[in-house]
């Protein structure tokens, strides 16, 4: 204290002076300290919340990615076009073994066929069929006969094909004859003893004339071409009966009567108003994004019409062959942008845009392979736009569906606190984008089906949706959401002219973030 006497007097005047503060002062201090502690915990919790949200989104993304990876195709060469020998090397069959023992020379088979078919055209057709088979046998027994025979056969085949093309394209009659010769190709047990064992030679050549056979063959080929998943015949397919549940809600008058006749004092339950007052001011808008891994079931069902089990198919495959197919449920994931509007304190309507990618695994023993010979014949007959050959070996198929979905749902808000719980139900229009079928066998070509008139699938089909949306507000206006959802088609995904139908169903759990505009 360097001050003088004057200052010392003032200092002493206030030394030890006290005024008892009011009690409310301490209450205010205590409350402020408590709020400060809460704010401190909130700041700390803020990071944990975002960390948890990021973890959930990361986990969901990882789950979706793993699901997609596990079901993705291992086929690395989609555009590979292999000859029959390559294909058969990868899928050795009984046919290969038989062809090794049936060592026949092309000239011999031609002579035999010539004896069998007096007509010149038939001779050429028979020659083609014989050389084709011979070429196949040579290819199948590659390494056994050597490449010389194969080259010779291929030259003969090409010459025969050129001659055949020049003649068979002229008239329907010629085509019929060729088809018959094709039947000879299959049905000649002496010339094709190796193959007849496989095909069992159970068909009757006299049952169908050439024109009928061509018609059946054409029909079959078109089915095969436009319906890649229909390479099989699920004889054991069952048709499940669908049960329709009819909901009969009470009318407002009925509700009013019910409530008015219920004495409230009995159970002490307060009567609810028949209708909630509309609050127009509560039109809260929100938008969100979510990622939803889940499960997808194409739910295929076989129709009455026989597809691959037709006589023409029997001719090629032999009646002993039983096509089969199994389709399992697969994984799906979706990325969605959702928009919602609160119509009243309890009701909201939601829509948005969702990208769906669904993947299912199929297993079949009948797929389309490709050989130059078969492709030339088929193209010459104008049966298919692309080439293919039938092969029979267990093959896993990877079915990848892509959709854009536009849902429209009504939601009833059960709980509207920091945690919000909404029950949703509505419709969704699914727009088909693409279906890619990829065999596990790398030597086979993938097939991509795009929407359009040639597609067996409808461009748009409709689904019913039920779901739940639980959201938790982690920040003002920001919420994390958890949305389990079940979706099932209410009309067939496939077009009505198909031999099978599909009513896809999917279930998933979406995780996302929601922003409330207020």
């Amino acid at each position: 204290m360097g001050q003088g006497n004057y200052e010392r007097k003032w200092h002493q005047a206030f030394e030890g002076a006290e005024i008892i503060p009011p009690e409310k002062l301490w209450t205010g201090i205590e409350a402020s300290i408590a709020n400060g502690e809460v704010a401190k915990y909130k700041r700390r919790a803020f990071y944990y919340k975002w960390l948890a949200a990021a973890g959930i989104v990361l986990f969901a993304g990882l789950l979706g990615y793993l699901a997609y990876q596990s079901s993705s195709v291992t086929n690395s060469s989609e555009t590979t076009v292999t000859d029959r020998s390559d294909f058969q090397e990868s899928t050795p069959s009984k046919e290969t073994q038989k062809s090794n023992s049936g060592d026949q020379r092309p000239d011999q088979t031609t002579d035999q066929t010539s004896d069998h078919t007096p007509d010149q055209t038939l001779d050429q057709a028979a020659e083609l069929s014989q050389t084709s088979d011979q070429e196949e046998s040579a290819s199948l027994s590659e390494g056994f006969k050597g490449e010389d025979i194969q080259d010779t056969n291929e030259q003969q085949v090409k010459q025969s094909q050129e001659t055949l093309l020049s003649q068979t394209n002229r008239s329907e009659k010629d085509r019929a004859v060729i088809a018959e010769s094709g039947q000879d190709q299959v049905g000649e047990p002496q010339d094709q003893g190796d193959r007849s064992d496989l095909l069992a030679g159970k068909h009757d050549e006299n049952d169908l004339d050439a024109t009928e056979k061509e018609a059946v063959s054409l029909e079959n080929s078109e089915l095969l071409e436009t319906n890649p998943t229909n390479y099989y015949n699920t004889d054991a397919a069952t048709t499940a009966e669908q049960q329709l549940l009819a909901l009969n809600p009470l009318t407002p008058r009925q509700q009013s009567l019910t409530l008015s006749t219920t004495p409230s004092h009995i159970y002490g339950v307060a009567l609810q108003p028949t209708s909630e007052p509309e609050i127009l001011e509560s039109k809260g808008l929100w938008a969100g994004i979510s990622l939803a891994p889940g499960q997808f079931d194409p739910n295929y069902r076989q129709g009455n019409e026989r597809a691959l089990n037709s006589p023409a198919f029997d001719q090629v495959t032999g009646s002993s062959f039983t096509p089969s197919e199994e389709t399992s449920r697969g994984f799906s994931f979706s990325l969605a942008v959702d928009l919602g509007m609160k119509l009243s304190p309890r009701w909201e309507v939601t829509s948005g845009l969702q990208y769906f990618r669904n993947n299912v695994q199929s297993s079949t023993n009948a797929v389309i392979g490709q050989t130059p010979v078969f492709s030339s014949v088929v193209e010459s007959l104008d049966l298919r736009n692309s080439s293919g050959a039938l092969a029979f070996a267990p093959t896993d198929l990877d079915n990848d569906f892509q959709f854009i979905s536009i849902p429209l749902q009504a939601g009833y808000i059960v709980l509207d606190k920091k945690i919000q719980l909404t029950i949703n139900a509505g419709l969704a229009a699914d727009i088909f984008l693409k279906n890619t079928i990829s065999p596990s066998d790398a030597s086979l070509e993938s097939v991509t089906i795009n929407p359009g008139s040639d597609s067996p699938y409808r461009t748009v089909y409709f689904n019913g949706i039920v779901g739940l949306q639980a959201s938790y507000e982690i920040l003002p206006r920001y919420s994390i959401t958890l949305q389990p959802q079940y979706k099932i088609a209410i009309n067939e995904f496939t077009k009505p002219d198909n031999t099978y139908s599909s009513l896809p169903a999917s279930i998933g759990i979406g995780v996302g973030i929601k922003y409330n505009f207020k």
Partner: protein
Amino acid sequence: MQRALYERYAGAMLVVCMRYCKNKDDAEDILQEAFIKVFKSIQSFKGDSTLGYWVKRVVINTALNYQRGKLYLFPMVDINEIDPKQTQDLTLSNYQMEELLKMIQSLPIGCQVIFNMYAIEGYKHREIAKMLDISEGTSKSQYARARLLLQQMMADADKINYEKYQ
């Protein structure tokens, strides 16, 4: 612990706050804010001084921050009319603490703050100038004006008391 600390120092600190304010409500606000700071920053007390002195420093700083805006609204200027002789014979024992508080609260805000800091807290003009971001001369002149005003107040009070007892 917090409650005990509060009860130990709250009474004295409320007087300090009232010296820097114009009314009790403001003083209570300052005291509340000051004690919240004390409790939040009690870990920073290293024992270099007594706890009472440290708490008082916190309270004074809070009061200065509270009044800082008003200090800018009423800028302090140098005042030269000082008559030191008039303040030689000062007797404060005749006044109650509440009366002295009222006199101090009646001073202009600049004079009030500087008088408190210099005469009662014991800060030097250099320290006051630094704390309030003013010149040392301004601090001195404001203090002189405060003394003059207080002398006039005491003279008026003495006159009233004299007339009352007559």
